[in-house]
């Protein structure tokens, strides 16, 4: 590996930071771990390596091999062939960060279109160029709200109906902030309450209230009155949402959300093994200087022609230094592009159709599963494409049985909410045919009789 520093330059640098030798930079790493013996096998040929990797991958069963009824944050949707085809074009696939706009107009325009689509879909004024995933986008909403009030409002109210992992990530990001007080409301309930339950906890110390729509349990609530209460107290409302659902239901922006975040994986991005995914972040114009992440803007060049650039870069920490509100200055470019291509291919009507198929099929599934002895669907609110199924035996048992029939069962809610032990979160998308759903029902019937 080529290191360009001369010994005298290295010495000068060490001296300037007050360190005697290069070795001293690693004092935090215990000596015995510094040069561990790596027990690596001898090198193999490309042919052998490909064969080995093939063996590993074929021992996995994915949504391609199994009937998938699992959701809970990552969803099995159809990816049109056009997405991959365009994505793999070298100009897109190998493009780096568009720091030099003069040679990156393709990338910049694609991101600009992505931002526009997200802003339109969520009903907000502006969107950034994306985050790692829905969880980190949610965390950034917390960061933004905290800094918006300059730390004077240390309270964050989280609904327990927000994805448990998203709540954990938000807490990880913010737990070190001065005076921070993160409260999760509704964990004790048998079924987490509705958003209006949060109202009682909002006061002048609250910076941000975070809810999910449709919520983690698939339910849809009108957030308008909650938004009003939040604004009465001078706080901000962040809504975590599902982009496919927005093809059918009212956008959070129309209900009074100040920030809308979520996971863009359903838009033309495969499930993979939990990633890479796509966080999106949209907000009102008045907050644009406070948001993290990249922003692409449209402008004109010296000849008056339209062009695109990274803009408002003074927010980012490489310019604002320690005063930046976030350390994020990257995005998921390729995945934002995939989402943009997906949305362009399906269009407004296609997105609505996809959403409608999910909705209709999920409701059909809920209807027939509810009829199976021992099983019942908990429905205290309208739902989109996920619902809670109360089961007669532990979810783990049911899923093992389902797997034997090549079915990937729903999410075991008992893991996150003790009050929901033996309850499964079932997800149905356009990928599940009526036959698939009927088959699921018949296999579950077997469980009831065991």
């Amino acid at each position: 590996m080529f290191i360009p520093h001369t010994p005298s330059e290295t010495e000068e640098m060490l001296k300037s930071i007050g360190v005697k030798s290069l070795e001293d930079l690693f004092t935090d790493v215990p000596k015995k771990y510094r040069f561990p013996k790596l027990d690596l096998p001898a090198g193999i040929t490309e042919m052998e390596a490909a064969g080995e990797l093939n063996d590993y991958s074929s021992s996995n069963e994915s949504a391609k091999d199994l009937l998938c009824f699992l959701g809970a944050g990552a969803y099995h949707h159809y990816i049109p062939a056009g997405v991959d085809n365009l994505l793999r074009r070298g100009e897109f696939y190998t493009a780096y960060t568009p720091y030099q706009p003069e040679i990156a107009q393709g990338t910049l325009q694609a991101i600009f279109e992505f931002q526009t689509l997200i802003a339109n879909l969520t009903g907000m004024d502006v969107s950034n160029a994306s985050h790692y995933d829905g969880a980190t986008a949610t965390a950034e909403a917390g960061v933004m709200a905290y800094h918006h009030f300059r730390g004077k409002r240390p309270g964050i109210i989280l609904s327990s109906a927000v994805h448990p992992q998203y709540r954990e990530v938000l807490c990880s990001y913010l737990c070190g902030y001065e005076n921070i007080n993160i409260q999760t409301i509704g964990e004790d309930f048998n079924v987490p309450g509705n958003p209006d339950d949060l109202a009682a906890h909002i006061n002048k110390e609250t910076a941000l209230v975070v809810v999910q729509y449709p919520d983690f349990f698939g339910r849809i609530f009108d957030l308008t009155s909650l938004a009003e209460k939040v604004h009465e107290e001078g706080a901000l409302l962040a809504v975590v949402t599902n982009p496919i659902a927005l093809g059918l239901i009212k956008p959070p922006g129309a209900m009074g959300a100040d920030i809308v975040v979520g996971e863009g994986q359903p838009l033309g991005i495969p499930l993979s093994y939990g990633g890479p995914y796509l966080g999106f972040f949209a907000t009102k114009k008045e907050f644009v200087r406070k948001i993290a992440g990249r922003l692409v803007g449209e402008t004109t060049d010296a000849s008056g022609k339209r062009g695109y650039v990274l803009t408002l870069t003074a927010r980012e920490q490489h310019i604002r230094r320690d005063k930046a509100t976030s350390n994020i200055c990257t995005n998921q470019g390729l995945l934002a592009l995939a989402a943009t291509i997906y949305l362009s291919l399906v269009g407004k009507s296609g997105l609505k159709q996809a959403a409608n198929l999910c909705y209709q099929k999920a409701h059909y599934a809920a209807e027939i599963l509810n009829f199976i002895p021992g099983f019942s669907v908990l429905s205290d609110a309208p739902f989109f494409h996920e619902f809670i199924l109360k089961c007669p035996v532990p979810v783990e048992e049911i899923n093992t049985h389902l797997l034997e029939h090549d079915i990937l069962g729903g999410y075991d809610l008992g893991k996150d909410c003790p009050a929901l032990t033996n309850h499964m979160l079932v997800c149905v998308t356009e990928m599940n045919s009526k036959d698939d759903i009927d088959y699921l029902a018949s296999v579950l019937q077997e469980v009831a009789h065991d």
Partner: protein
Amino acid sequence: MNVPANLKYTNSDEWLFIDGKVATLGVTDYAQDQLSDVVFVEVTVEKGDSIKKNDHVATIESVKAAADVNVPVSGKVLEVNESLPNTPELVNSDPFGKAWMIKFELTDPSELDNLMDAKAYTDYCSTRGH
């Protein structure tokens, strides 16, 4: 470079106009020139706030940098320039006039002794690179 004789200056390019116990704060012509086109100004204190020497009171963003404006003496905020955020370019065109940022009551006038007068500030600026 414009350096009005009746003002006091800091080495971080803020100016103060003193009128009895009331001080007005802004940034200098040198500052706006260094920053280039100012696109955003945010005053981060409100009427009634107590400010201490070296407190951050405003942020200026130009096309190439984000700069903090700090108050060099302690006081209590009387007035904030509400229209400045809507017309950030005033920092470039009228740094000593319409682009004033805050007016405050001095709580420790002796702190003014640490500031430079116009001549000292002009000399100081001439020693700086760009």
